[in-house]
């Protein structure tokens, strides 16, 4: 496995500004929770300028890692729960929705998986990604350690890797 490109989104950056700076047109972005916004933007930045984008493909996996998953958004949903539970917040209370958003945007029909680890563990992540390449269809992957501790405090590293 080799890393082709990598990207970092510093904690606390304005994600809406980043979206506009890169002239992205995808109104659904504003419906996403912070975790998905980070995954979406990180992938946009990783793939910016690629000529073969948005062509449906099955050979690229999306593998996301974190400690807290979607807990920052769980708190938002929990606030609506006793009154009018919000379906649009509830759909983001799953740690793997970030992988689905990236797959939908990029038309990736390959594997998508979300893993949670107690801490950032490069060796562990590397071995899980290498194991994912046992699937003979998978030849590349978007990999991220995207951990949202709150809506303004996160670690966001993402990589494009090849088998």
């Amino acid at each position, binding site marked *: 496995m080799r890393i082709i490109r990598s990207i970092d989104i510093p904690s606390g950056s304005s994600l809406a500004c980043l979206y506009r700076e890169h002239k992205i047109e995808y*109104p659904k972005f*504003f*419906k996403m929770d912070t975790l998905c916004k980070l995954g979406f933007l990180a992938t946009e930045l990783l793939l910016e300028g690629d000529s073969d984008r948005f062509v449906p493909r099955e050979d690229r996996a999306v593998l996301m890692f974190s400690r807290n998953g979607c807990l920052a958004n769980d708190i938002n949903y929990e606030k609506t729960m006793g009154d009018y539970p919000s*379906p*649009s917040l509830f759909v983001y209370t799953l740690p793997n929705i970030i992988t689905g958003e990236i797959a939908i945007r990029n038309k990736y029909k390959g594997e998508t998986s979300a893993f949670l680890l107690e801490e950032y563990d490069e060796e562990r992540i590397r071995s899980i990604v290498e194991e994912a390449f046992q699937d003979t269809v998978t030849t590349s992957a978007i990999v991220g350690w995207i951990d949202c501790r709150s809506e303004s405090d996160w670690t966001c590293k993402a990589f494009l890797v090849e088998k």
Partner: protein
Amino acid sequence: MEDLIKELKLSIIEALNLEGMTPDDIDDNAPLFGDEGLGLDSIDVLELLILLEKNYGIRLASPKEGQKVFQSIAVIAQYVTENRTK
């Protein structure tokens, strides 16, 4: 009716996170779903059901019934005028 239409547009923009849109961007008669118009989806329908209940005291039985009401802003406004309890 004019005021209600504007009020509906503002609350829909807020409830559905339609970033960067203003009431003037939404045509009163444009379809809300599908590729034309606002392009709303099934989750948006559910949020609109809540909006009608919360703001106007209207309880629709199912998303299916909602689909009939949520054809356009004008249709929603008409429905709200006829059925609101608050």
